[in-house]
């Protein structure tokens, strides 16, 4: 990812182009497995195919928000010691959060459609749905905060603190189905618990999570690079302005 720092004029490198191709192939295979090869469910029928989008999306969102939090913590702890003032961490936090928000949105949308055919309703204010939409709104707020004009260090610090506060909700979302009574079912995948999904469906779900992870990595890397380009543009604009003023001052003198 640091490669881009010395590579000013592109958001792609040979490595990420390969990653893009891998992501494409992975997603096509995911669609084949999820939509054609994997069987229908005994209770839900074809609707079970939403599982392979809905569950990986929220796992990717969780992962992205973990990355945002770690980067934000590193920004707060190390920014003063880094030659770039910790902006690498800030960019990583910002790009991961944006990708996390996109996938939380996908989770909500696919969940609503899935809920319509299985529960018989698009929406209910149960603990899982409520905390998830709160997660979405909180990280939207985080992204809005990043756009507030301020000098990079102040902005970075503000955003980092907000990121750490926002993360508190992630475990609440995940465990809401265990802590409270919800319409939403219990977690489909949990560490240390035997999955209650039969073989082909289980493997399709795990594979889909891998495929969506590759896509998310591609998105985060490229978003990071765009943020870097934007920063360079702003810096160059400032430098150009200073230079032109210095020149004008010289002429006037």
């Amino acid at each position, binding site marked *: 990812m640091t490669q881009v720092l010395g590579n000013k004029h592109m958001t792609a490198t040979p490595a990420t182009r390969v990653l893009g191709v891998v992501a494409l192939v992975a997603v096509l295979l995911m669609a084949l497995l999820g939509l054609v090869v994997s069987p229908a469910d005994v209770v839900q029928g074809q609707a079970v195919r939403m599982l392979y989008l809905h569950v990986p999306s929220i796992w990717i969102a969780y992962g992205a928000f973990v990355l945002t939090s770690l980067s934000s913590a590193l920004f707060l702890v190390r920014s003063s010691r880094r030659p770039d003032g910790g902006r690498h961490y800030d960019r990583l936090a910002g790009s991961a959060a944006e990708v996390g928000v996109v996938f939380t949105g996908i989770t909500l949308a696919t969940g609503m459609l899935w809920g319509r055919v*299985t529960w018989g309703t698009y929406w209910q204010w*149960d603990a899982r749905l409520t905390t998830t939409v709160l997660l979405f709104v909180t990280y*939207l707020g985080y992204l809005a905060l990043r756009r507030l*004009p301020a000098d990079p260090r102040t902005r970075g610090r503000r955003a980092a603190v907000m990121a750490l506060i926002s993360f508190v909700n992630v475990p609440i979302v995940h465990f809401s189905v265990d802590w409270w009574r919800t319409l939403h079912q219990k977690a489909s995948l949990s560490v240390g618990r035997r999955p209650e999904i*039969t073989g082909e469906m289980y493997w399709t779900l795990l594979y889909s999570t891998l495929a969506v992870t590759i896509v998310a990595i591609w998105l985060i890397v490229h978003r990071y690079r765009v943020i870097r380009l934007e920063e360079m543009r702003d810096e160059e604009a400032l430098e150009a302005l*200073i230079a032109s003023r210095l020149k004008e001052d010289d002429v006037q003198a």
Partner: protein
Amino acid sequence: MDLSPRNEVENPGEFRRKVHRNRRWAVLAATVVLIAAAGFITAQGLRNATLFFRNVDEAVEQRPELVDRRFRIQGRVIPSTVRSESGVTTFQITHGCVVAFVQHTADPPELFTSPWIPVVLEGQWVSSQAQTVAGVDTHHFQSDRMLVKHTNEYASVNEQRVSEKLPKGFLNDCAFEVSASES
């Protein structure tokens, strides 16, 4: 050294402040909207989420307090009890070995037909003489909204299991008898 942009604007400093102010207002407005949304969601959550439903046994036990109140009840549909006539579906649900007779007046979701499916019903207790598999009850549950609470179990249609799997021991030690398999 003056670093303000020099262009056609008469008062560049004022112009820049204005642009800055406008942007600040826009972001501030967006933040207020987001905080309001978060507040609304939290309020909805606190009101609804902590006790989304009562299980059948609890709803029967708390009947004196619940009479004339709308609430949600949860239980598994006993397959052999489902009847449907002119838009009204009657069936019995059970949880914790307690059975409730339900009269439901709206179209049930598609998955309702799946045997032993857990459902969440919205409505209230109505005084009546209801005959259930566990005996005569003094009330039935009058419902107008049904949500199917599907579980996190998934199984291929290719397998021979044809009904929602009952949790182990779900009907053990119950004073009434119903067949655990599909009726």
